[in-house]
Structures are given as C-alpha cells and as structure tokens.
C-alpha cells in the first residue's frame, strides 16, 4: 500500500488527486490537504467581479467530492516538509495546521510515501504598500475577493448614473506580477458592463501593467499566424484597446497605493501617479511559506525551495543573461531536486527564468513580468505527475516517467472581453509551445501554424463552455476523465 499526499486542491492538485484515485486501487491512499473548503474555477472570477456570476456558480465544496471518490481530505495548511522523517517519525511527513472550523488551529503530522506540492501561490499583497482588499484596491484572485469587488463596481455604476465622472484603474499591482491575462479580461468586462449600463461616456478606463508592450502577457508576446500573415499580439491587443477606448500605463511598477491614488515608476525611471475612483490590481505571487527540515531538524529550506518560495525541480536554474535562455532550461518531470518522491505541480514549481525580457529602471527597480503557468499547463502538469507516481507505485523504479515540459506543450487561452450570449466577446488565443524555442522555431520562438488569435462572439461561447466543462470535470461526474486538461 502506498500513501500519496497532495498539498493543494487547485487545478493542478485536484486534477492530480482525481487521476491518482482513478488509476490506483483502493488499497492505496490518496490524501488531499487544502486550507480551502471550496474548489474555485478561478478563470470565471472575472465575471463574479462584474456581478455577472455568483460565488455559487464558480465554487463548490470539496469534501463531498472527495468522500464520494474515497480521497482522504484534510482542510488544513501545510507549513513544514520533513522529507526524511525525524523527531520520532521514521517516514517522511508534512506538518499541517487545520483551518477546518471543527479542528481550527490543531496541528498534525501526515506521513507520505509520495508527495505532490501543488499549493499554488501566496497572494503577496504585502509587496506593495496599500495594495489589496485590506488596503485601497480590489482583487478578483479569489471568489470572495471578486464578490467584494463586484459590490464596489456596482457603487461605481451608481455614481456614474448620478452623473459623477469615475476613473477605473485595472491591472498589475507590482513590477513582478503575472496573470496579465486576468487583468486584461477584467478590464474589458468592466468596459463592456459600462457600455451595457449606458454610462461609458462618463468613465475613464485605464490599464496599468508591468508589460513592456500590450499583448506580452508575461510570455514575451506572440506572433499569430493569420491568413498567411503574421499578426503580433501587440497589434492584436492594441486594436482592441483602440476600439474600446481603453488607455494604458505601460512598463510600470506600482510602488504604493494611497486612498484614491497609485504611485508608480516606469522602466525609464520616471515616476508618476494616477488618481482613481475604483482600482482592481492583482498582486505578485510567491511560494507559500513552507519550511523544509532534514532528519536531524536542521532547516534546509534553501535546498528545497527557491528564494521566491517556489519548489526547485528538474529545471536548469543556472543564472544566465536573457539572450542565453533556452527552452530546455524548463522542467519536464517536476521532480524535486532534493527528494525523488516529491514533485511540484502548477504554480508551485520554481520557473528557471521569465519568458519576457526582464528590465530594470535606472533607479534599480526590477520590472519583469513573471511567467504564467496557470490553467491548461497546471492541469497537464498535475496529470503527468499523477501518472508518474502511479507508474512508480505499480512498477517501481521501472515505471514510466511522464513529462509535461511547457517548452513542448501548447496552451489555449480564452480571454473574455464581455459577457452575453449575443453581445459577448472574447479573444481566443492558442500558443505552441508556451515557452519560446528560438532554436527550433527561429526568432518568433513558436510554431506559426499553431499560434493563433481571434476575437469574436464564438470565443465567448467557448469560454462559457469551458466554464461548465471544467466544473463538470472537477466534480468528477461520469466520464470526467475524458475531458482533457
């Protein structure tokens, strides 16, 4: 009998848990540890944030699903990794603190044979003074945040209907943020709702970002193949900004937020400030605060985790200049550098470097979009790691090692630009591979036949379809496993 513990029940962790349970017999334990009681389809939080969906439509309780699937569930936060056991324990274990109201604050040690770290990110609002729901800006990172944001947005619309001009600032709350796509989506959903409410003329919508060019998305931009021509994502995205009258502050690091004003620095060193009546700014991510210890109790966190808090895996972390970065630097098995029975999936693994060129202002401020690894890659990595563990359990060291390198993986992103069966709009983008490979594909770094962008109502239908499909899959309904990651 083998016991696999999965830390986190987001897209990567939940996918891994369901696949492990599907593949392994009941004599093997599958254990999920998550501080959250609910599963959240995060891509739809942007619709919660404009009042077009409710929390109930984007979340569901995890416990009944895990009970039905015979997965052991601990609503708890893991904070220590003891990969060699120790302190009276022979087997490796993680120390957890319960967030389950019935056991709140109680600590426990959970032994494992195999461990998947799929904890996702810590939302690091603290990196920018005044950022976040405890400061002066809103967020759509969680369903709860998005609900509060929707209330604030509703108040903005009420003021606009009262004839009061409003400035809405949406984007990235720090120079090292990722998930520009989510901020992009929220920007255009806000704009769409302002038009629908008949108050667009009185509102100014401004996008603030750490990207050097529109359409960078932390992926160094994309070149779409379209009718035999090359359309840069900068042009594709800029066209939408022009059409919808949205302005932007580019290459910006938000230094601090005060009531009604954001202070920022741009990559050329100039400082600026932007007044706002409503601001939704995403935080930078870092790894969750987990410590690692060896058998004698010595802190070896630096051996297991990168300074960013993300887990070091089979990537090449050798520091190199941007020009020398290679697609092959990126991990493929996601196995820990320290332990051969530990993997990191989804956002929890430490990327070897950014995809976009990092920049530094003359004042030394780093403005460097972090690489996105949410959604499709997270799910695919979660599944590959689960398959590798199942192979190891069934066949020992001879078991097949499954890989899911982002340098050999495509991804699709449907970026909503407004909700409505007849009036909705979205940008559908496919990219292959996710990590640019300039040795294989030349300067563009990607296969032009598989890297594609299109705006229209059909892409909105696609986003709605994916919403229902992935919630169906996450609920482990019949034949859920036929729905790809």
């Amino acid at each position, binding site marked *: 009998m083998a016991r696999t513990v999965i830390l986190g029940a987001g897209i990567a962790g939940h996918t891994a848990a369901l696949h492990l349970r599907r593949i392994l017999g009941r004599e093997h334990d599958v254990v999920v540890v998550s501080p959250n009681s609910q599963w959240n389809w995060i891509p739809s939080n942007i619709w919660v944030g404009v009042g077009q969906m409710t929390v109930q439509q984007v979340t569901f309780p995890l416990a009944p699903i895990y009970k039905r699937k015979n997965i052991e569930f601990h609503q708890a936060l893991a904070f220590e990794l003891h990969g060699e056991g120790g302190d009276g324990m022979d087997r490796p274990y993680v120390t957890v603190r319960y967030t389950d109201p019935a056991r709140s604050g109680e600590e426990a040690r959970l032994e494992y044979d195999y461990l998947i770290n799929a904890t996702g990110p810590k939302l690091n609002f603290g990196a920018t003074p005044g950022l976040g729901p405890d400061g002066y800006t809103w967020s759509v990172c969680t369903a709860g945040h998005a609900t509060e944001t929707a209330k604030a947005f509703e108040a903005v619309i009420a003021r606009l209907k009262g004839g009061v001009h409003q400035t809405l600032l949406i984007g990235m709350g720090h120079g090292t943020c990722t998930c520009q796509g989510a901020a992009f989506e929220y920007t255009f959903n806000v704009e769409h709702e302002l038009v629908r409410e008949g108050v667009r003329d009185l509102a100014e919508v401004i996008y603030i970002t750490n990207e050097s060019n529109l359409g960078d998305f932390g992926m160094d931009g994309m070149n779409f193949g379209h009718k035999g021509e090359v359309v840069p994502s900068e042009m594709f995205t800029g066209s939408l900004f022009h059409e919808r009258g949205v302005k932007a502050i580019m290459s910006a690091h938000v230094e601090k937020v005060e009531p009604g004003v954001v202070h920022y620095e741009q990559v050329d060193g100039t400082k600026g400030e*932007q007044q706002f009546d409503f601001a939704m700014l995403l935080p930078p991510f870092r790894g969750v605060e987990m410590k690692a210890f060896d058998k004698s109790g010595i802190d070896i966190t630096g051996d297991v985790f990168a300074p960013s808090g993300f887990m070091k895996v089979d990537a090449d972390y050798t520091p190199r200049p941007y020009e020398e970065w290679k697609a092959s630097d990126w991990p493929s098995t996601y196995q820990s550098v320290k332990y051969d029975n530990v993997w990191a999936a989804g956002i929890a693994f430490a990327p070897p470097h950014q995809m976009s060129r990092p920049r530094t202002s003359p004042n030394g401020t780093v403005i460097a979009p972090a690489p996105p690894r949410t959604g499709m890659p997270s799910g695919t990595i979660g599944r590959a790691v689960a398959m590798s563990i199942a192979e190891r359990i069934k066949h020992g060291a001879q078991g097949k090692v499954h890989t899911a390198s982002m340098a050999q993986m495509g*991804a699709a992103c449907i970026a909503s630009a407004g909700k409505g069966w*007849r009036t909705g709009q979205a940008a559908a983008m496919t990219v292959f591979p996710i990590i640019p490979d300039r040795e294989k594909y030349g300067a563009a770094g990607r296969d032009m036949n598989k890297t594609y962008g299109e705006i229209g109502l059909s892409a909105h239908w696609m986003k709605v379809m994916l919403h229902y499909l992935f919630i169906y899959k996450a609920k482990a309904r019949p034949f859920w496993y036929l729905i*790809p990651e």
Partner: protein
Amino acid sequence: MNSVTTFTDAPLPTAGELRARKNVLIQLWRFAVLNMKMIVMITRGHH
C-alpha cells in the same frame, strides 16, 4: 504627472469585421473551427 498611453495608432477592425464578430451564423462556424483548433492543440501539443 502620469504617462497614460492611448492606442490611436493601432489598427481598428473594419465595419465588416465588427459585423462578422457578432453574426451568429458566422460565429457558429468559427465556434466549430475554434473547437477543432483546440482539439489539435490538445492531441498534438500535450504529452
């Protein structure tokens, strides 16, 4: 001070493109095409 950029140099979609983006029949066809592209991406692009 601030450095707010407008994108007036970016190309605007033509009136025909805007109509096509909202035309249900055309978009039903595009929906089918998008699904095919996704399937190709998933079958050939994942390991």
